[in-house]
């Protein structure tokens, strides 16, 4: 099948529109100072915090998202469509709105926060708040990609295994999960990437303090005002991480 030729013009324009800004960042990177800029104390603190919190929220996403995706893909109940839309809401919600919502849930005067406060647990301004914000925005990414994989895989093998006497847990563990492993992997990588890039919900809900809540995107936002070179250098770090993550996700899908 041959494509209409004119299609390539807007396609190339679109690709250029995405790639050009990345080239622009590369062009602005102060290469001579680059190593010093990305290894400064505050940069290392931000990078370390970003990696730690993103890893934690990715684990949370897997623990919560795998059962969610399975229930959504393998069961039918009234209102399921509505529930799915609501659960996936953070995907389209502006992160700053997510941050405000989290504030009124886990904040000092929030729905749960009030009770947590009584127990002596303070969520706002802590690293926990960062992890909650990241999990909130990243969870739908994992659920969407895993649910898609589950639906594509179908239920034939599961039915066969069950007819041969395997219990539901065995079927889930030995058939369902291995079957959708590539989808789970790419979903996990996507969730990690989304956590790493989280900004709006974090700054609204968690605040910004070096080593505690100031993740890499927040550090870039702060530096951008006073140390443009530093901000550009750290931006490149995030671009490189993003490229690696996309590579990983593609490999996961190809398997």
């Amino acid at each position, binding site marked *: 099948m041959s494509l209409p030729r004119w*299609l390539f013009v*807007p396609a190339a*324009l679109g690709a250029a529109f995405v790639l050009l800004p990345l080239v622009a960042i590369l062009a602005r990177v102060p290469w001579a100072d680059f190593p010093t800029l990305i290894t400064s104390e505050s940069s290392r603190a931000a990078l370390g915090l970003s990696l730690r919190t993103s890893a934690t929220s990715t684990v949370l996403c897997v623990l919560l998202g795998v059962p969610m995706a399975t229930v959504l893909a393998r069961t039918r109940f009234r209102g399921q469509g509505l529930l799915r839309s609501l659960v996936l809401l953070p995907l389209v919600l502006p992160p700053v709105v997510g941050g405000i919502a989290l*504030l009124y849930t886990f*904040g*000092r*005067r929030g729905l749960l926060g009030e009770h947590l406060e009584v127990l002596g647990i303070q969520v*706002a*301004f802590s690293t926990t708040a960062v992890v909650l914000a990241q999990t909130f925005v990243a969870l739908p990414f994992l659920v969407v990609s895993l649910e898609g994989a589950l639906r594509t895989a179908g239920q034939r093998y599961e039915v066969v295994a069950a007819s041969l006497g395997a219990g539901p847990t065995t079927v889930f563990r030995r058939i369902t999960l291995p079957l959708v492993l590539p989808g789970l992997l790419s979903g996990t990588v996507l969730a990690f990437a989304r956590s790493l890039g989280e900004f709006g919900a974090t*700054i609204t809900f*968690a*605040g*910004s*303090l*070096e080593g*505690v*809540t*100031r993740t890499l995107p927040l550090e870039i*936002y*702060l*530096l*951008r*005002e*006073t140390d*443009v070179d530093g901000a550009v250098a750290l931006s490149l770090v995030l671009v490189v991480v993003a490229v690696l993550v996309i590579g990983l996700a593609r490999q996961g899908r190809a398997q």
Partner: protein
Amino acid sequence: MRSRGALGAAALLLALTGCSGDAEAPTLRVYAAASLAATFEEIATLFEADHDGVEVELVLGGSSDLAAQIGEGAPADVFAAADEPTMGTLVEEDLATGTPEVFATNALEIAVPPGNPADVRSVADLARPGLRLVLCAPEVPCGAAAARAARAAGVALEPVSEEQSVSDVLGKVRSGEADAGLVYVTDVLAAGGAVAGVDVPAPGAAANRYPIVPVAGSAEPDLAAAFRDLVLGPEGQRVLRAAGFAPAP
């Protein structure tokens, strides 16, 4: 069909972002610190009333952020910063027309949630362990002022968060997440009853001086100078005084 829709959207995008209406009334773009939002809106209205057909466009934000934007070529005609070091970066880049003039000063005040639940009475109280204090990051003018206030009071402050702008600090106090924050006198006044203020003794040491200057390369240098004069003149000063700003020393 879908591709045609996309092409149409692209064409629309180009049309929207393209320059249009060059022949229309001149627009004066005033870049001003976030803490000047209410006063400069009022002054802009006065200016538009005095200059028929001129439209004033206010761009409000953190001073350092605005200075960085102007440095990158943002089309500013006038710049009003929340402190002199930030204005200094503009002067260094030869982007100021003439010498910046200080038009107001603003003192720091402690903002607390209504009722002052943590019973904060002084700057020294802000260092109390367990108190959730929110400040501006030291990189932005209100954070630099907070650091001066702490030095003057001889205390070391350990905030739970260092925010990007004074309005972010106020937001955290308003929502009750923070027990206290250091903001400007004018912010507490503007927040009405949403926060209460606790005076910082001898605030002079920590006060910010607000400079204003027409930006070099402006397409409307005369209007820019006229706007600066309005801010420095009795009418502008009256508006600033009503909002809690102190006169330039």
